[in-house]
């Protein structure tokens, strides 16, 4: 979307900070329903990021599929089990702390920023995003498209068969 500069930056900062806080909320909250709702908000923030970069079709697809189907499914599973959350202090042992240190402190954050600075190509796309995806799916990615449909069919039948017993 061609928003003016300050609105663009403000939305970036807003969505980014929301993502950071809610990502922590998924992991650290004790009640699983709160973490499921935090996951829903993380997915909404991610699809808003896709709107900011002109990929409208992918944004609405993520909103419909992730928030509308997968998050609802996870909420159903959470409410289906009576998870006895004993109110205790979160004991994240030394393994957890070591992992957190390894993943966050050893990731080369500066390397990530440095690799993207070289090519800033300004591209003008005359075709919309949904037409681009349609063209790619019908010509280049036809075989993966068929495989994905078979995978989805098998997953559907398998999930129903497992839960019917």
């Amino acid at each position, binding site marked *: 979307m061609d928003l003016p500069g300050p609105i663009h930056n403000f939305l970036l900062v807003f969505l980014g900070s929301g993502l950071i806080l809610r990502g922590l909320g998924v992991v650290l909250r004790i009640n699983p329903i709160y973490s499921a709702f935090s996951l829903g908000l993380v997915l909404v923030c991610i699809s808003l990021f896709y709107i900011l970069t002109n990929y409208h079709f992918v944004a609405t697809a993520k909103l419909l599929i992730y928030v509308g189907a997968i998050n609802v499914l996870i909420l159903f599973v959470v409410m289906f089990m009576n998870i006895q959350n004993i109110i205790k202090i979160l004991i994240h042992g030394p393994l957890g702390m070591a992992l957190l240190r390894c993943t966050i402190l050893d990731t080369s954050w500066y390397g990530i920023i440095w690799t993207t600075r070289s090519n800033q190509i300004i591209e003008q796309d005359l075709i919309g995003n949904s037409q681009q995806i349609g063209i790619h799916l019908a010509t280049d990615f036809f075989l993966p498209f068929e495989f994905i449909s078979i995978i989805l069919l098998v997953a559907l039948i398998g999930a129903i068969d497992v*839960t019917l017993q």
Partner: protein
Amino acid sequence: MMLEHILVLSAYLFSIGIYGLITSRNMVRALMCLELILNAVNINFLKGNIFSIFVIAIAAAEASIGSAIVSSIYRNRKSTRINQSTLLNK
């Protein structure tokens, strides 16, 4: 300005997801952190819009099968703790 911020955010979400996946004692929380990991990878594919659609479809199939397995395990054993799956131990 946009690209590196999103890449850094996706790396952050990925590490948070891995941390939550490994230190979670609940199977449903592990499923949620798995979705977080998949979304972090998906937002890394910012300029590859076709592959994002494939990742969305695979994540949907995996979430449905994962929740079916979790609910059948709960029905068998009445508890959702991860560290109780010790049937293969001696």
